[in-house]
């Protein structure tokens, strides 16, 4: 039996080329530049919106549901840690196969990078007027959609009447084997730890490292660990996760140490390559609206909008001492910082 290999290859490549040309030429609709230019009819025709987000899916689900109800437009999401969400957006852009219509990550530096790469589309949101200038891009490519405070999350039974009250308490001698912190292997937990170190010194962080803290991959798994008393206390827990754990009666409580809590800015933006610009913008506006942000707050998150109440039973932002992260510096030094984290903590930090 003889096989004409060359002929087979020629035929195969012809088929591939044909498939390729068929794929192209999907023209992009004219995208709306601001909330007033959203065409509802087009939005409905465009169909399902793809959201890339690092927000907890329980909150995402509650925000999507009324939107779907109201407009009949479905929203699917890809959920992972902020760094991974960002990595995915960049990789897909490299591939020329963008999937996301809207991206949301709890790491402003990531949005900076996406903007720098020209992946984000300017869009004037109606919410802009309600946010301080530092929380929205002058070029309107991104807008802050949530604030995450790193709190001290602890198991009530573990400490009884005398829970740790300050960050420095976590580095004390008696804390060996009782502390936990979180970061995905992509380095997600790093920014807030760096903020803490910048304000109170690396020695504080190193003292905590001496207690051999248990690393978890996400705020949610850290909550789990604290609920089970695998560890007694969690460093820099997401406020909403600690809030939910307490609310569900899992035997945990949390506090905002008076010396200051690192605050992380999450932001969202619309992707230039989106093939559903109207539907995505429509969802973006719902996401940023008072109604959408109220649902966020109901899930335990702080909204950047001044007209949205803080989560039930939580301190208003104004009453906390927030330690802000310089995201411009973080973006510039990210690689160096992650190496430093690997040095101090060991393990994988994605660099």
């Amino acid at each position, binding site marked *: *039996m003889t096989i004409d290999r060359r002929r*087979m290859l020629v035929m195969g490549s012809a088929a591939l080329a044909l498939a390729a040309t068929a794929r192209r030429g999907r023209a992009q609709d004219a995208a709306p530049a601001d909330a007033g230019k959203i065409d509802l009819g087009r939005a409905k025709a465009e169909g399902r919106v793809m959201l890339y987000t690092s927000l907890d*899916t329980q909150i995402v*689900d509650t925000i999507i549901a009324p939107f779907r109800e109201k407009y009949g437009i479905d929203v699917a999401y890809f959920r992972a840690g902020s760094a991974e969400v960002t990595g995915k957006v960049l990789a897909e852009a*490299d591939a020329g196969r963008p*999937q996301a219509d809207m991206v949301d990550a709890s790491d402003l530096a990531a949005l900076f*990078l996406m903007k720098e790469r020209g992946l984000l589309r300017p869009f004037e949101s109606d919410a802009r007027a309600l946010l301080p200038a530092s929380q929205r891009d002058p070029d309107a490519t991104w807008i802050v959609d949530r604030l995450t405070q790193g709190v001290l999350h602890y198991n009530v039974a573990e400490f009884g009447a005398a829970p740790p009250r300050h960050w420095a308490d976590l580095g004390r001698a008696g804390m060996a*084997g009782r502390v936990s912190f979180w970061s995905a292997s992509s380095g997600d937990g790093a920014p807030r730890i760096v903020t803490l170190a910048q304000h109170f010194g690396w020695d504080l962080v190193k003292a905590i490292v001496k207690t051999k803290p248990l690393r978890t991959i996400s705020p949610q798994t850290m909550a789990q660990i604290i609920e089970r008393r*695998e*560890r007694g206390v969690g460093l820099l827990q997401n406020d909403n996760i600690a809030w939910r754990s307490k609310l569900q009666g899992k035997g945990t409580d949390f506090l905002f140490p008076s010396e200051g809590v690192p605050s992380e800015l999450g932001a969202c933006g619309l992707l230039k390559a989106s093939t559903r610009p109207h539907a995505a913008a429509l969802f973006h506006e719902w996401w940023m609206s008072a109604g959408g942000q109220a649902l966020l707050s109901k899930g335990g998150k702080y909204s950047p909008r001044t007209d949205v109440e803080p989560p039930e039973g939580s301190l208003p932002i104004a009453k906390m001492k927030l330690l802000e992260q310089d995201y411009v510096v973080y973006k510039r030094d990210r690689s160096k910082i992650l190496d430093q984290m690997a040095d101090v903590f060991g393990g994988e930090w994605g660099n």
Partner: protein
Amino acid sequence: MGQLIAARVRSQRFGPQNLVLGLAILVLLVLVAYPMLWLILGALGVPADLTLANFERAFTRTQSYTALANTLYLGLGTGVLSMAFGVPLAWAVARSDMPGRQIIHLLVALSYITPPYLTALAYIILLGPDAGLINRLLRDIFGFSSGPLNIFSMNGVIFVIGIHVFAFTYFLTHSALKSIDKSLEESAQMLGARRWQTTLRINLPLVAPAITGGVLLSVIDSLALFGPQAIIGMPAQIVFLPTRIYATISSYPPRWGEASALSLVLVAMTVIGLGLQRFFLERRSYVTIGGKGVRSQTVRLGLWRWALLVFCAGVVAMSAVAPIGVLTLTAFSKDWIATPSLSNLTLAHFGTALFSDQVAARGIYNSFRLAAGAAFVAMAVGAAIAYLDLRTTLRGRVFLDYLAMLPLGLPGTVMAVGVLLAFIRLPIGVYGTIWILLIAYSARFIPLATRSVSATLRQIDASLEEAGRITGASWLQSMRRILVPMARPGLLVAFLLVFIPAFSELSATILLYTGGTETIAIAIYRLNDLGQIEVVCALAVFTIAVVLVLSAMVHLLSRDRTAPSEGVG
């Protein structure tokens, strides 16, 4: 006249046989060779560059060295564990009069088919340093103040992987021990050897190649098991090569080149391992001297058989009963921290897992269709390659066969990096779709299908097809009406052998999935991220149930297949 035949032959060159087989070769090249090429090109910085910088970065960073050292240490540890568990169990089941041998055998099989990342999740519940159920029990009994066992450690990773991979050593040693004819031992005893001398001098050397081969397979497999390395290694702050590769890509911006360079290191390790394994298993041939109708000698242990049973039962309790038990218990519990009781039982998590959670429900659907698709592609390509190898004289068929076996030595993480690099820039849009997963799964599991179909084809004499041809059937007709119907059970086994691992694949999926293409393994991994452990366990129980049912089908089919072969000639 000569012209006439030449024209006829030329038209055959594009006939169905060459078309079908040519297509299979093309698919194999695209699925396996092309991604491997890109792995190397990617490591060299192509297309942007041609540079050794990626290697330089990969090889000059302590993170990489730590990962490499940890991976080697892990391989060493699991190898030792695999031997310590696999060999005694194999001997006990194959040669002793220990009670419950059948059950032990089945439970080893069960621990083998349970996806190891589920075992890892189970052991976090069981052996978490403070809250782990076993630790709590031990503290209650012995009054330790903390611990005493910590799954979040190198030993923890070695343990969890070890109780999965020891099955390789077990199965190879078991079959080797079963194939030693009684007469070999009897003749030693006739010459005055004592029982233990026979074991040491006769049995051990005879099965040593099988043991070595099994241990090496265990080591190779453990290097590639992303799931437990991530799920237990991450909290333990221990980085292995696959988790390191994952981190270089999942962080931003993704560092493809470095990931490729690291992947090549992993490939080198597994290729060396497979080479050694082949070397040792080739020497195994003399074990089967007894051939068919082997009578093996059962060793009477007296009271010692109970001690042996305790050991064997302990191993399978750790490897199968405890993890699957705790996953099941958690899946049915309202509150997984609470002590088990009837009032704590619920089916709600299955409702969430199978219907209401967006990602989980999509994951189940995607896993079924991906596994079915990959199983079909791998079976078809595997069948064509096996056919080319066994039934034709095509030049280069040995190379094709080798290419079809190559993915066996490629960890899922590496396969994913290769596939990503290869298809990310192609104008055909497979990246970010379910197709890229189909490509990766098909490529990964082609060896399983090829080997399985090859075994089936060896049992079907070529003359059966030739008889069809000479009776007037074209190649396609003889395939359709003779070979395929006869090979159908074997093809189905090949299909299932791919379907089973594809259904729960994690290590390649984690790098290739996107919104909408989540699989069941991704749902489990991500929901675990989100702390929804009960739903994770419900999904885990569902996965194990599916895998178990399909494995039982494979078992039944393979047994049937050997029975009515007399007529085959």
